[in-house]
């Protein structure tokens, strides 16, 4: 099991948090998703979701765009190139870790 530990410690903790991992996974699949969709998908409170989105934005992983859909304000989130790379790295690290653990 110790063979997998270096990878475990190298995992991106910002993405590793379940709610943020879910947000990143959704945004990796879609081009953009709005706040309401992420709220529905994550089941978080509005405050919690805002906090997670802010942390991802601060890390440069996502962009948050405030716009209008008709007369309704809309908050659109999308993954940045840096966020895409970070997510892909996280996934490959996790896969490698899982492979090593299955070998033990």
């Amino acid at each position, binding site marked *: 099991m110790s063979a997998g530990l270096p990878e475990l410690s190298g995992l991106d903790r910002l993405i590793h948090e379940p709610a943020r991992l879910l947000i990143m996974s959704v945004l990796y699949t879609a081009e953009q998703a709005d706040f*309401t969709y992420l709220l529905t998908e994550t089941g978080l409170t509005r405050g919690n979701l805002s906090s997670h989105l802010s942390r991802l934005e601060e890390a440069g992983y996502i962009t948050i765009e405030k716009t209008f859909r008709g007369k*309704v304000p809309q908050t659109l989130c999308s993954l940045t190139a840096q966020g895409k790379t970070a997510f892909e790295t996280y996934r490959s690290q996790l896969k490698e870790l899982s492979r090593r653990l299955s070998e033990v």
Partner: protein
Amino acid sequence: MDQYEEIRRRTLRYWYVDGLTEIAVGVVFFLLAMLFVLMGVIAPSPAIHWLLGLGQPALILLGWWVGGRAVRYFKERITYPRTGYVEYKRPQPNRRLAKLALTAVISFAVAMIAASFASSIPEAWLPVFTAAPIALFVIYMAIQFGLRRFYLAAAAIMLAGFLPLLLGLEGAYASALLLGVVAVIWWLSGALALRSYLRQTTLPAKDWQA
């Protein structure tokens, strides 16, 4: 299954959550059925049949375009305010072109195979052989997006293929009946999905920020 894979499928499946696409697809099938009724009603003339034959792909393309716009219009009013908006990735222009070319080649190959088989298949069985690829495509969609109700739709479409055979219908009317029943299947599937979606979701207050 990989947890990311499940989230990916769930995000893609969201497009079908409200049943609106199925209702639009049902309209296209209904219009195609009407075209076949017209072919049955109008006295057989090569020129008219040629024109009506040309009408099928034109109707599918027009239905695809108008249907897509109608679905987006209703999603803006029904779905996005309730459960949010997702914009899906569009394939790169060169990949889109390659996909289009591949689709054209496959369609041509299927048409050629179908044409060579059609002469050896009794005419009464043609609706069954028409229903089969439609049902297979619906099964492919069901697997691709994890849409369980599409398995039921595929089974119903396959059964619909036997309906003209059981009723002893042949020719244009047999095709019209098959396509008409397929339209009803999509409407039912879409309407049930929409009803379930509306029951499970609520429209947020006016000051809600999406």
